[in-house]
């Protein structure tokens, strides 16, 4: 089994020591993100996100399928994360690492369980036919903070996506091709974002946002807060690691809110930009109405 390369003793010691003196290797402030970039493809529902040297691609696809027997009125909505050898030779195809499982679970909680997408709107014929919406998250380059980057990519891709239009006449479902009818956006309820803190020092007194891979390797604990611009928290995950002051966590969530707002505005801007590029009529309206929520 290939293992992820451990950083040298010198690196481990120095990173911590430097943080003690309020220094990050790349000269960032502790609560400062690396430059975040988002680009959409020619197709609907493809989002390319870079956060410093971390790079994530999210692609949304939809097809008609049969609903689960226990949920006849719901569509199917899945988020598939994949951390392959492209991200690092330490990741093998089809052998999920802890990192990957963790990432998948957090995205699941943040986006799916928080009801960001109205799955009932995906139902076509109760108990017989429904949409299956699938997001594939591909990590192209891994330089830390996959969670925040991936979550942002997923939300961006879903909000950008358009699914084929449908109609039902006399119990007969028709799925129109893009040539026949302009595809329609998903019914989107709210946009949650992940903000991940990394803690350093013997009792986690130092807290960083957007840790790099090097920093993540020496952190003593981490905490991911998922919330939308309205400050509605979807989940908070602090999985083990050294205990952290409750007060500190509160401050973290406070900062997280401002970050979530920044993300949200940034995304709205990008979507509007893209809409202009395509100058599709009526799209702007939809977008703004989405934002009002």
């Amino acid at each position, binding site marked *: 089994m290939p293992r992820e*390369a451990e950083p040298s003793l010198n690196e481990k010691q120095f990173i911590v020591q430097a943080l003690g003196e309020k220094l*990050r*290797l790349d000269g960032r402030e502790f609560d400062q993100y690396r430059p975040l970039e988002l680009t959409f493809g020619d197709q609907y529902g493809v989002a390319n996100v870079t956060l410093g040297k971390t790079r994530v691609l999210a692609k949304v696809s939809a097809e008609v399928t049969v609903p689960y027997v226990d949920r006849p009125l719901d569509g199917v909505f899945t988020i598939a994360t994949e951390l392959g050898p492209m991200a690092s*030779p330490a990741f093998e195809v089809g052998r999920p690492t802890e990192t990957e499982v963790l990432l998948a679970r957090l995205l699941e909680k943040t986006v799916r369980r928080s009801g960001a997408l109205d799955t009932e709107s995906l139902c076509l014929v109760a108990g017989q036919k429904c949409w299956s919406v699938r997001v594939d998250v591909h990590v192209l380059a891994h330089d830390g903070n996959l969670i925040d980057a991936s979550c942002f990519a997923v939300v961006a891709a879903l909000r950008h996506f358009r699914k084929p239009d449908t109609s039902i006449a006399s119990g007969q479902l028709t799925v129109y091709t893009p040539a026949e009818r302009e595809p329609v956006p998903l019914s989107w309820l709210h946009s949650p974002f992940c903000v991940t803190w990394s803690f350093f020092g013997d009792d986690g007194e130092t807290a960083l946002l957007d840790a790099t891979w090097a920093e993540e390797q020496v952190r003593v604990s981490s905490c991911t807060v998922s919330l939308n611009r309205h400050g509605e928290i979807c989940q908070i995950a602090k999985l083990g690691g050294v205990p952290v002051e409750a007060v500190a966590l509160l401050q973290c969530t406070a900062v997280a809110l401002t970050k979530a707002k920044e993300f949200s505005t940034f995304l709205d801007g990008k979507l509007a930009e893209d809409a202009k590029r395509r100058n599709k009529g009526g799209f702007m309206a939809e977008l703004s109405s989405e934002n009002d929520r």
Partner: protein
Amino acid sequence: MATETERLYVLPGDAIDEPLVPRHKKQPLRLGPGLRHIPPSAIVPTVAGQLVVEPRKNSMWMEYNGGRYVPAQNDLVIGQVQRSAAELYLVNLAAHTASATLPQLAFEGATKKTRPQLAQGALVYARVVLANRHMDAELECVSAATGKAEGLGPLTGGMAFDVSLGLARRLLMARSRDEGGVEVLELLGAEGLAFETAVGRNGRVWVGSDSPKTIVLVGRALRETDEGRLDVEQQRKLVKRLVREMR
């Protein structure tokens, strides 16, 4: 420094016409990295880069950047101790590659008793004594000739930064400013920063100093020079800026 006109960019498998290949009376033709000889007389590049011909030394090689470090004899490298086996340390020169071997007695004045004890993850500055595709590379931290360390040995404290193989090579050039077009370290020194460095051909630069601030600053300077592809003039500006920020 070469001028635009005489630059020869070649791709793997390109044919290099005869006249370009130096034909020296006495010395044998010496082929550097990125080239291979196919009998009878063809010289073929195996990588994409700039073909450099040195008629005086009757040698030619490819100038290129990037890729993964492959050990070559006499390279100075910064290795990371994986574990110690009987009589030797297993040292990693690049992630996910087979580790090189470093005999525990290959240190200055090392004996059964005085040999240095290196923990897992410790860094050593070493020279590649044996490199060959069929065997794991072998290292030494002492010159076999003089028996002296000559700057080689364990690297304690400080910080190791990753740089591109190209920059590492340039930093190691005898006249790195004129040949390699990199002066950033000298400039930082000139600014009165106190630090020491060890440059590994395998794309790692170790920086030691009493002040973490200085180390971080040197690291950023190197990184920005490398990624920003800065020329000497820009390096000067960069150093000025960074130093200003620090103060």
